């Protein structure tokens, strides 16, 4: 039987809308939702079929029988596995209190369910991956605009100029946003790209600044100086909605383009020419404030500077600028219901909210759990449930993390794939692939907000379950039926939709329900109430930061240069992989089975290597080494060595990716404690590694 369903892709966390065809329970075609993407899909999206058919993923619950990490498992039934987890959780709750359980997941629309589960259980300790992603940007936005990083979206298509600091969007691939950028370029718009190396995104740029690693903030300060000097800012907007402009003017006085050029290793005249361009293109100039800015110790301030540049452009809530994403209420409609449970009023185990009062409590900061786990302050942590989150691949120094995890009585991995954490855990609950599972309805905010959902296209191939089934089953075993009252997904959908007046039939035509016919903009005159700062205005100087002991306008400090024999480790994305999630996918590993090390030709010459020769990368304490091929180029900064994130896995059941390439996280020894005190993000680019020619380059032939 032939079937076509609209759904949401799950190969990466962008979650593009898709349409899936199947015949007799076999997928025959996946494409981007024609109504939204015109069919467009990336290599990863298409390779979803290979994920589904991959037998190198967990096929039924697995309970550890050997030592942690030894990879000895026994297969278990779902009943046994769920009883095992629920039994252990109940015992831990009894002995140590519910707060001794941590649940981490990926961020995004479905985290609500996981959060509700752990809150209903009695623990405040929900966390996610954001400390290695958008936390700095989020806190930067909060400190200026009073709303988090999702508090703004970007109308790139109608902009005249997009400025990206290290955001390699054509490798990160958010298809709809990529279309917007290419459409803008087709219409003659400009793209300025700043990075320590050239990327696919940079090749499309009209202007490219290759900067010294760690100097984004310096470049932004130089640009702010020149923008103010030339008067290229929106005086009316500043007067009406912004405080702290005078302080900013005084602060940037010394940060001239000449100074910035020297710090960044770029030309002064190029900075001046760039400011002339934005002078001409404003207000339709978008400075993207960063996606993953968990990089340098001043990334929070770099992000603040980008936000400030947007404010100076006066581009807020307008076509071709930043806009506030709208929801059902803005369209005069009632919103959907969501699974929810209030957070228990207990101190968080990561210190957020009490030890670090300046951070938003939300998901806290995952990396800060470890030191608290070691000292058992404010209480011991006895269980960690990782919901499609791999702390060992996402955060620095997995060996240091293991010391803290060893204090737990229970480590649970709920995942479609084996993860490095899963391999170390006590039990793996295999989740069905996104093509085999339903999920609850979510609201997607925007200029034209939508309701959308993921739908199962085919039945599970193996003995796996959807996350809603797993959490509901655990909740029912733990007496949390009040938060998880439903038994089927249909019941859940009906309950969610009840207040809206929509039914599931409304999703049939396009796969989503559009809540507005045309883009919704707020009245620009009445914007003030949108900024949730203490003053209700955009605050360039934040009292909240001052109180927490951080300056709002921080003087720039030149980044440290690498010592002899070392380079600064920079990692990034490629278009054919989703970090570590896809490197064992048969079709994607065929495209890119391993990563390489980008090294500047000057350094290569010194080491006596050419492209393709093997390099050895070692951690600062020499406890981790990996050998990878060199990619010699002039288009990476000489202080840096670049590698694609996600490789270097050591999971034997994943034969394609086993020991392929180098792991950036394993090179980051001791770096769990190196984080941005003002923004909360981990400093993923504050790592120096030894780089030398590998002795494995031998040309001798010994074998017969």
């Amino acid at each position: 039987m032939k079937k076509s369903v609209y759904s949401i892709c799950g190969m990466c966390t962008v979650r593009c809308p898709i349409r899936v065809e199947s015949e007799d329970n076999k997928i025959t075609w996946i494409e981007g939702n024609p109504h939204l993407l015109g069919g467009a899909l990336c290599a990863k999206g298409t390779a979803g079929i290979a994920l589904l058919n991959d037998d190198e993923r967990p096929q039924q619950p697995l309970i550890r029988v050997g030592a942690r990490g030894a990879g000895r498992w026994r297969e278990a039934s779902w009943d046994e596995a769920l009883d095992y987890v629920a039994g252990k959780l109940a015992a831990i709750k009894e002995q140590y209190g519910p707060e001794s359980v941590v649940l981490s997941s990926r961020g995004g629309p479905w985290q609500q369910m996981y959060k509700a589960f752990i809150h209903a259980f009695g623990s405040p300790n929900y966390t996610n991956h954001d400390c290695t992603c958008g936390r700095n940007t989020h806190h930067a936005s909060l400190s200026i605009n009073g709303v988090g990083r999702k508090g703004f979206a970007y109308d790139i298509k109608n902009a005249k100029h997009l400025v990206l600091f290290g955001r390699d969007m054509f490798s990160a691939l958010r298809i709809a946003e990529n279309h917007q950028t290419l459409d803008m370029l087709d219409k003659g718009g400009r793209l300025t790209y700043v990075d320590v190396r050239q990327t696919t995104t940079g090749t499309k740029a009209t202007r490219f600044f290759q900067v010294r690693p760690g100097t984004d903030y310096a470049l932004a300060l130089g640009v702010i100086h020149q923008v103010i000097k030339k008067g290229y800012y929106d005086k009316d907007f500043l007067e009406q909605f912004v405080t702290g402009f005078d302080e900013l003017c005084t602060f940037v006085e010394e940060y001239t383009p000449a100074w910035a050029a020297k710090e960044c290793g770029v030309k002064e005249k190029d900075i001046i020419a760039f400011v002339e361009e934005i002078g001409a293109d404003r207000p339709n100039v978008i400075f993207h404030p960063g996606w993953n800015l968990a990089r340098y110790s001043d990334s929070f301030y770099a992000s603040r500077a980008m936000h400030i540049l947007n404010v100076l452009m006066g581009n807020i809530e307008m076509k071709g600028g930043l806009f506030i994403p709208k929801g059902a209420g803005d369209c005069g409609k009632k919103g959907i219901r969501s699974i929810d449970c209030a957070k228990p009023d207990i101190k968080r185990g990561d210190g957020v909210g009490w030890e670090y009062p300046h951070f938003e409590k939300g998901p806290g900061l995952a990396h800060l759990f470890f030191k608290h786990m070691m000292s058992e302050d404010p209480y011991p942590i006895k269980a960690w449930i990782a919901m499609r989150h791999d702390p060992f691949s996402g955060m620095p120094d997995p060996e240091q993390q293991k010391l803290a995890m060893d204090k737990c009585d229970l480590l649970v991995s709920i995942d479609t794939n084996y993860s490095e954490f899963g391999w170390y855990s006590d039990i793996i609950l295999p989740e069905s692939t996104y093509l085999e599972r339903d999920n609850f309805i979510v609201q997607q905010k925007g200029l034209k907000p939508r309701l959308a959902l993921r739908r199962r296209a085919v039945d599970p191939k193996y003995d796996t379950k959807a996350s809603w089934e797993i959490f509901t089953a655990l909740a029912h075993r733990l007496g949390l039926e009040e938060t998880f009252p439903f038994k089927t997904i249909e019941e859940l959908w009906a309950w969610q939709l009840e207040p809206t007046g929509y039914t599931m039939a409304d999703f049939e035509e396009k796969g989503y329900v559009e809540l507005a016919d045309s883009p919704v903009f707020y009245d620009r005159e009445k914007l003030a109430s949108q900024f949730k700062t203490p003053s209700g205005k955009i605050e360039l100087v934040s009292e909240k930061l001052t109180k927490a002991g951080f300056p709002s306008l921080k003087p720039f400090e030149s980044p440290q240069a690498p010592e002899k024999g070392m380079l600064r480790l920079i990692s990034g994305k490629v278009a054919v992989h989703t970090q570590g999630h896809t490197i064992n996918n048969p079709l994607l590993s065929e495209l890119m089975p391993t990563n390489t090390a980008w090294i500047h030709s000057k350094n290569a010459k010194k080491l006596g290597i050419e492209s393709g020769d093997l390099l050895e990368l070692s951690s600062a304490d020499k406890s981790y080494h990996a050998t990878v091929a060199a990619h010699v180029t002039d288009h990476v900064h000489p202080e840096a060595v670049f590698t694609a994130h996600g490789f270097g896995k050591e999971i034997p059941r994943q034969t394609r990716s086993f020991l392929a390439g180098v792991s950036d996280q394993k090179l980051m020894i001791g770096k769990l404690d190196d984080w941005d005190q003002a923004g909360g993000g981990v400093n993923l680019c504050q790592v120096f590694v030894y780089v030398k020619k590998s002795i494995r380059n031998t040309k001798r032939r010994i074998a017969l």
Partner: protein
Amino acid sequence: MKKYMIHLNSKRCIACHGCEVHCKVNKNLPVGPFLCDISSTPLKMIGGVPRTEITFSTCRHCDDPLCVPVCPTNAMIQRADGIVYIDQEKCIGCMACQKACPWSIPVQNPDDGKAVKCDFCMDRLDAGLKPACIAKCTTHALQLVALEVV
């Protein structure tokens, strides 16, 4: 009569290699063979920006295909609209076509040992649909050009 061509708008192409996978998944090909290829030249400074030139290549569907006459079982066929395709029923996997083709386009499918190559997704074309690589190109950079030949 129509004659088809695939055009790559290299201003939009981002070398994401999606088309290569769209193609092989549509043809149900295992790890190994690819029927189309995206390649980008090493970075070169042009106007102050390091740039690359991206090209998409697949079977040329030659007017006078060298692969067709060499096939001992007449499995390699040229349709009236110029599409050169392999009749999988007749193919014996001798790969004479690959040796005859100036670009070695036909490749062997390790699953059944037979030759495979781009057939312009003629089943889709005949059903009024676009070829897989074009239909799903991440950025709509690939376009189908249909020339009316009289």
